[in-house]
């Protein structure tokens, strides 16, 4: 029999199934249910037109300051700056900000230390380095998973993470 709690977690996992590895979500929720961790969530939304404006005004500097080479390649750069480029970058910027919220690190994390990495299977993960990685360790985050999308004028991203609450 499925408990009420299991049903709720199952629905949450299904909701993320299209864009993330659903086994990641089940693993996160199973660990949380075991009482060793709690779940931390961060969400951010980004206006795509603002990204388009930055690309027009400072194409080189904007990309170099905010996005890694891998992130730029994932949206088709170097190449023509079409609408899909801005939408893809807006999603990745929202994902970085969602991760910043999960890190609870305020404004101290460089944007490029949070890389939105595309896996061969097609979905994306968040790779941390430098101060971002140290912030994750300080916050006792043990794992995290990401989903982001865009439609119309905005992109949105959510990061779900597990924070260790019990010292083993």
């Amino acid at each position: 029999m499925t408990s009420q709690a299991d049903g709720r977690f199952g629905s949450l996992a299904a909701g993320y199934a299209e864009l993330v590895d659903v086994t990641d979500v089940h693993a996160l929720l199973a660990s949380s249910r075991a009482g060793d961790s709690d779940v931390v969530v961060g969400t951010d939304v980004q206006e795509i037109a603002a990204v388009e404006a930055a690309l027009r005004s400072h194409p080189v500097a904007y990309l170099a300051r905010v996005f890694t080479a891998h992130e730029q390649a994932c949206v088709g750069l170097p190449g023509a700056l079409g609408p899909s480029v801005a939408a893809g970058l807006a999603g990745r910027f929202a994902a970085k900000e969602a991760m910043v919220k999960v890190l609870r690190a305020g404004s101290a994390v460089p944007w490029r230390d949070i890389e939105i990495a595309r896996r061969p299977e097609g979905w994306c993960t968040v790779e941390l380095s430098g101060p971002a990685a140290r912030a994750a360790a300080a916050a006792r985050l043990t794992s995290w998973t990401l989903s982001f999308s865009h439609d119309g004028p905005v992109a949105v991203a959510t990061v779900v993470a597990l924070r260790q609450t019990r010292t083993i």
Partner: protein
Amino acid sequence: MYDDIREILRVHGRLPIDAGTLDIDEDLYRSGMTSHASVNVMLALEDTFDIEFPDALLRKATFESISSISQALISLGVPTPARTS
């Protein structure tokens, strides 16, 4: 320098209030500046002061107040401003 920073905030900060009324220590994010707007502010600062922010300063904290922006600019060799609010 403060006047230049305020003008950049007025044009690029997308603040819901007049940047000219901000105290130099006022938190720009709490005043309504979005994270992405702070990127545009950073790019405009590079144009205006002919500098390039190094990796260590490419974080939201650098742009969270007029004072913090000023300190970052000074660290990059821009002359120190007279302290007025």
